[in-house]
């Protein structure tokens, strides 16, 4: 029987992979993909708690829907910014983008 802890461990592993991607990627699109992985880990957590702790109302699943919506908005705006950066810097490696450092 797959219990709550299995889902939590799965989402922890997924979240850590996402954090690792955010820390080590040089490509801005890769960083956005890692952020999507982290959103998915959080969603697994929400749905797992909704199934195992409050199975009669669907609050966790509704919150997961809101998270998916915000993730879509974030991906849109993030990719627009990436395109703008590409146009200005002729590249999207984030370690070349340092005009806000002093």
């Amino acid at each position: 029987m797959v219990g709550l802890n299995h889902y939590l461990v799965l989402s922890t592993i997924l979240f850590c992979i996402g954090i690792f991607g955010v820390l080590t990627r040089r490509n801005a699109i890769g960083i956005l993909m890692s952020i999507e992985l982290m959103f998915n880990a959080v969603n697994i957590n929400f749905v797992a708690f909704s199934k195992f702790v409050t199975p009669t109302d669907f609050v966790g699943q509704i919150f997961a829907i809101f998270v998916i919506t915000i993730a879509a908005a974030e991906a849109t705006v993030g990719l627009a910014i990436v395109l703008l950066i590409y146009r200005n810097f002729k590249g999207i490696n984030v370690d070349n983008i340092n005009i806000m450092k002093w």
Partner: protein
Amino acid sequence: MVVSLKNIFHCALFLVLCFFGIAGVYILLSAEFLAAVQVLIYVGAITILMIFAIMLTAKLYNAKIRQSNEQIFPGLIIVAALLVATIFTLSRTAWKLSYEVAEVQSTVGIGKLLLTKYVLPFEVVSVVLLTALIGAIIIARRE
């Protein structure tokens, strides 16, 4: 795979695979509506958006460019520490489990709740989506 491959395009394809797997997890958790939403939005929309962005920023997805920076080993250490700490904590926590069975299907329940109790966040989220859409167009527009 998503975070370690050299070719960013292959990463996007593995991201699709990962999203399908997560949709399977939702089905296992008896959240069929969320599984459908996951496939539609993540696989159908977000990944296509990513692939569009990769194509538009072409010449970068040849495999010769080093894709990761020099923070790999500190990153690995930090992430491993976080993983161990989190799993240790959640294996020692006693959750208040409940074994009742929902009397309605998850899609029915979500639909009813979204249009009664949670109608205000629902509308706010749609406004946020519209704002993001307009903002993305304005940001990416050529002057």
